[in-house]
């Protein structure tokens, strides 16, 4: 449960979505959460909401595959008021909705921004897909890829765009490592090799405050996003 290279994280300046509102103020930071089904994306989003909602104005967009399950879960858990959670339908193709045709997600994001302004942060959860599914830069400003130790400790070694290029890689469910025979040291070494200088965090989201390293990273990104506003 450590966060590597917290300060050397590279900042992206290639926002294709306009970072400013029409009135010139900076819009909410948009963070995508991608990764395979069941890795802990919803758990991460829920934990972030609980941790950050006291001091930030938050909203969530979910991209469910065939239900409103994730949105319903988040509403049921009351991590945010219901009007702050929007579900986007993806027509059996979750990666299309976050990468190739982002129009429905952009609509959802802009509507939240309009109705709840001022918003600080919008978290967009992907429907869960394969290791190649990443978010378009036209939709999110920065993205987190979530995998878990229980799906095989060779996943970091296999790589793929999500693992190698995401702005933060989360390797979740470290608590399960002893039960599934996952070697965390090997996973960490493979991860470091795949990601070079990009940050990653090993987490157990079922543990108290297990979201901390991710929450710290998000806070840091938001600070950077706001300071870019002055430029």
């Amino acid at each position, binding site marked *: 449960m450590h966060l590597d290279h917290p300060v050397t994280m590279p900042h992206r300046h290639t926002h294709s979505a306009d970072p400013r509102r029409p009135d010139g103020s900076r819009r909410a930071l948009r963070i995508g959460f991608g990764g395979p089904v069941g890795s802990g994306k919803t758990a991460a989003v829920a934990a972030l909401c609980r941790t950050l909602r006291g001091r930030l104005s938050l909203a969530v967009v979910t991209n469910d595959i*065939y239900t409103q399950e994730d949105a319903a879960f988040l509403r049921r858990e009351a991590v945010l008021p219901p009007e702050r959670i929007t579900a986007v339908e993806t*027509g*059996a*193709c979750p990666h299309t*909705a976050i990468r*190739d*045709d982002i129009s429905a997600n952009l609509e959802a994001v802009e509507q939240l921004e309009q109705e709840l302004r001022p918003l600080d942060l919008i978290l967009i959860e992907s429907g869960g897909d394969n290791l190649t599914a990443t978010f378009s830069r036209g939709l999110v400003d920065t993205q987190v890829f979530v995998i878990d130790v229980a799906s095989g400790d060779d996943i970091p070694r296999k790589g793929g765009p999500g693992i190698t290029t995401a702005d933060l890689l989360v390797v979740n469910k470290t608590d399960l490592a002893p039960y599934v025979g996952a070697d965390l040291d090997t996973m960490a070494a493979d991860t470091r090799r795949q990601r070079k200088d990009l940050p990653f965090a090993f987490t157990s989201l079922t543990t108290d405050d297990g979201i901390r390293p991710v929450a710290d990273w998000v806070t840091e990104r938001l600070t950077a996003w706001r300071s870019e506003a002055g430029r």
Partner: protein
Amino acid sequence: MSRTALLLLADGRFPAGGHAHSGGMEAAVASGAVHDTTSLEAFCRGRLHTAGLTAAGLAAAAATGHDPLALDDAADTRTPVPALRHIGRRLGRQLLRAARATWPCPELDHIAHHRPGGVHQPVVLGVAARAAGLTPLDAAHAAAYDSVGGPATAAVRLLSLDPFDAAAVLGRLADDCDDVAGEAADAAGRVATAGTTVLPAASAPLLDITGEHHAAWTVRLFAS
């Protein structure tokens, strides 16, 4: 006119939100009405000559330069079901976003400005076609093809149909698509003098009914 612009506009990969919609196919599959290649073809042929013809007329009329807001009202008149009106406007907004990025022009801005809630998708399609330098007949072709291309793709996903069979269905419908587009463009040519009432108003009551039902499903793959 640029033939390539028409290919771009009619391409299922044009990022205008269509991929999440089945055009009534999901409901038809659930009821058992569509279950194989033959029933897929029957569904598509029916949709083309009803909803497709109506959409093609609206698109062609918009491509003549006729007032898109009046055509949006005409689209409402031809869309009795609230769920499908809602979907039509939502897809219209999504297409408008893609079209403004691809063929920026005051006519598309005008729609965004005057109808922030969106206008019906076929109307946007027609204005976008005009912005791309295309003719009303081109716009009608794009709308006619769109009315069957989306459902056919959805059927492949929903039924695990052989994609070659689905492509062959669309191939066999090509002449019908041309006929529908021609009829729609002819009607659109009369709108300037005779008003929007001359536009086709063919409806498919079963698509309307299942469209409204589908919107209330809690578990579904497609948004419509």
